[in-house]
């Protein structure tokens, strides 16, 4: 099984910490990934709204590069990239669409293109929960976390194939294997406001506020995300959300890879924890002194 890696544009900019922690976690697990040589934009937000054919061609080009690298699957950390890659693959089943894309590209596409999956799925396919638990050096015991997938990861269901579109549970199973307590987070697939953070700031603040509020009410230590834009909206805009909601939030928002990295005992610097707006120090302290924080009567078990 040869895996190609498609980082996506955020990885080189706003979500460098996601990129860093993804690479670190995969390396720690021993998962070999080869970056697609000469990868380009997936045809993200603006392009597919204007012309699916052109945007599809961009995604198809990247899949084709992976095919030429003899990859069996393509992994990407970003749900938006994943959505575009998978949509393109789906649309390419239509011969007319394929012909149109071939016309746009320098060379016709390879007959068979590798399937695009999220890095999360890639990890889960390669390592069962026992294998992941075996890699844990510093269990996340005592941490109560809310998994937040965002709107894109599981939708549309027939394209993304990421479990139940309303209630995906993959992130929970990975982090439970790392020792964390995962709460049932009903808003896990709600909208975070996405790219409306710029034109409709108040709306985005209201949407993120709702998510942060419920997470706070559920008493979690952190919200765990898998999407660069979700992370930015929930983390960077926490003060805007607080202003809109009229309550203060102090909710660390981490990538699941950062938490897995912590559990694997990787250095915080290797996971880009310093890039978070709301510091994760409270989590790390809790992990270092579990007894002090465990107020449950059976606390001595820890």
């Amino acid at each position: 099984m040869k895996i190609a890696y498609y980082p996506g544009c955020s990885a080189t900019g706003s979500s460098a910490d996601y990129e860093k922690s993804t690479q670190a976690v995969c390396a720690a697990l021993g998962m070999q990934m080869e970056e697609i040589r000469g990868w380009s934009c997936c045809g993200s937000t603006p392009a597919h709204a204007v012309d699916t054919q052109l945007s599809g061609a961009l995604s198809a080009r990247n899949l084709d590069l992976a095919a030429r690298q003899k990859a069996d699957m393509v992994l990407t950390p970003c749900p938006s990239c994943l959505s575009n890659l998978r949509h393109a693959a789906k649309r390419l089943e239509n011969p007319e669409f394929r012909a149109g894309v071939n016309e746009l590209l320098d060379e016709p596409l390879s007959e068979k293109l590798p399937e695009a999956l999220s890095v999360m799925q890639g990890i889960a396919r390669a390592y069962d929960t026992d294998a992941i638990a075996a890699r844990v050096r510093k269990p996340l015991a005592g941490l109560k976390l809310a998994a937040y997938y965002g709107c894109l990861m599981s939708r549309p269901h027939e394209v993304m194939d990421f479990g139940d579109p309303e209630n995906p549970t993959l992130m929970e199973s990975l982090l439970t294997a790392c020792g964390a307590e995962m709460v049932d987070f009903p808003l896990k697939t709600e909208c975070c406001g996405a790219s409306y953070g710029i034109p409709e700031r108040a709306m985005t603040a209201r949407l993120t506020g709702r998510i942060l509020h419920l997470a706070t009410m559920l008493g979690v230590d952190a919200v765990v995300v898998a999407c660069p834009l979700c992370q930015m909206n929930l983390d960077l805009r926490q003060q805007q959300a607080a202003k809109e909601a009229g309550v203060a939030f102090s909710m660390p928002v981490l990538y699941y890879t950062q938490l897995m990295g912590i559990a694997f005992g990787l250095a915080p610097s290797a996971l880009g924890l310093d890039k978070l707006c709301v510091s994760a120090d409270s989590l790390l302290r809790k992990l270092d002194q579990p007894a002090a924080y465990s107020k449950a009567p059976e606390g001595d078990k820890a």
Partner: protein
Amino acid sequence: MRIGVFICHCGSNIAGTVDCAKVAENARMFPDVVLAQDIMYTCAEPGQAAIEAAIHEHKLDGVVVASCSPRIHEPTFRRTVERAGLNRYMFEMANIREHVSWIGKDKEANTNKATELVQIAVAKLRNDKPLKAKSFDVNKRVLIIGAGVAGIQAALDCAEGGIQVVLVEREATIGGKMAKLDKTFPTVDCSACILGPKMVDVAQHPNITLYAKSEVEDISGYVGNFSIKIRKRATYVDWDKCTGCGACTEKCPAKKTPDAFNELVGPTTAINIAFPQAIPKKAVINPEYCRQLTKGKCGVCAKVCPTGAINYEQQDEVITEEVGCIVAATGYDLMDWTVYEEYGGGRYPDVVTSLQYERLLSASGPTEGHIKRPSDGKEPKNIVFIQCVGSRDRSIGRPYCSGFCCMYTAKQAILTKDHIPDSKSYVFYMDIRANGKIYDEFTRRAMEEYGTEYIRGRVSKIYPDGEGHLIVRGVDTLLGEGVEVKADLVVLAVGVEAAKGSPHLAEKLRISYDSYGFFLESHVKLKPVETNTAGVYLAGVCQGVKDIPASVAQGSAAAAKVLGLFSRDKLENDPQIASVDMKRCVDCGKCIRCCPFGAIKEVEFRGKMYAQVIETVCQGCGLCTSTCPQGAIQLSHATDNQILAEVNTLCQC
């Protein structure tokens, strides 16, 4: 042979897109056809009279009618030719309506196709032989499967008509879903008060034999003479001794047993009686929770039982009953709504089904008629009802309307206000379907007198807000904006599906069922009670969604069919069955091996073994005929030569 061909116009139904005169003209060229005419309505009285007259006048010995589907009028025309002195099997039909005029607009192609269909009917007829039915005795007893309100009605009507009834119920008590309801719409009658007396009648009627906690295991035979195997499930209580005093249920220590009758709201004891008015009022042990049966020690119920009725060793028992016909009244179940992850997928205790809510409302329910929400037992103030959960939803493969949810939701909203006067109910609906007698008036009352807030739109999300409420987020499509309601309790009007195991039972009954498991009636409009299997009738929701009045009506209708069938002492068999040409049979046993009915046996004749068809058991599928390499066993009226004549007519170039 002298064959007459009659082409039906069916008004403009056929003649609109088929040149019937031309078809008749073409038919005159076919071998043995001495007469071909087109008639406006062959099935109408003048049409049938014309056929009869032509048979006499032209000395016809075979008739072809080209009209609608033989599934509709083959029996009609068979009777017509019989009246004129022909054997009823010297008749063939060409379906030029459903298969020609209604599906194509090209008149030339239709006329040509109709001609060919007539031609193959003529070819088949030329190979037809007169067949004689044999008569046999009818066992005037009826099996009714399912003792909900439809089955109860059918049973009582049959029993009153003097017929012996065998009533089989899967659950421990009869009454079905209606017994679980608190009140019924649109009169807000107490359900137990109107059903209870009927249930008692069932128990007391001398013509009714009731098997509760029993299931039909196997059905063999044919109309007039079915043989039924009934599996009586082990209840671990000797019902002959049990008086229903309830001493055992008071003392049983396994108090966390799920209560199926109460729709799993609240627990019960491992030995229990479903509800105070249960019929039969007998105790049943749930073997999965009984401490004696699971852990081998307890035995409390045996100790307290004053009649010594407890028997931990009891086994299932299989009983055979012989009946002449069968009524299926197996009802429905609610679909598994937990597929709706947006409603919490079953993770939130305060999201309940309408039937669970019915138990919360009921005075005999787990909360004794006080509405308490399951999570913390608090009285809810804001209650949201969501309609069409699993109905009219293509995304989960349930495109049909469950029929009665609009009405019972209105009823539940009214009852809620009665129970908790300071409560507020919200109903998210798609359309309100209130098309019964005083139904629309009833929903209006819920809105206008009881202040229920009806919001037209779907709910996209239910989630707990972490402070003890459920946030119900939906859309109001009339205002065109999103709505959020902070609710204490959410009631889902969960869609109806055929009772669990319906397809399995249909296979035993040899009747058809649709893709949702509902049994298929003979004709959707004109034969809603009959099935395509002779002697099997339908009543209630097992045939399709309907409310209580319609279920009762169909129960009575099924009883009328049963009484009609049993008004005769003898029935005639269908002579379209297989028979063996002994001189061709080599006794290889292939037909015996594959006959689905065990209708072929080996017999000895002059020192050699042969296959022989048991005439009353053969159902006429013809599997044996297509299996026998030498064609020694032939299905009458669908012989190799008859089908070959049709094939050869179509394919001869």
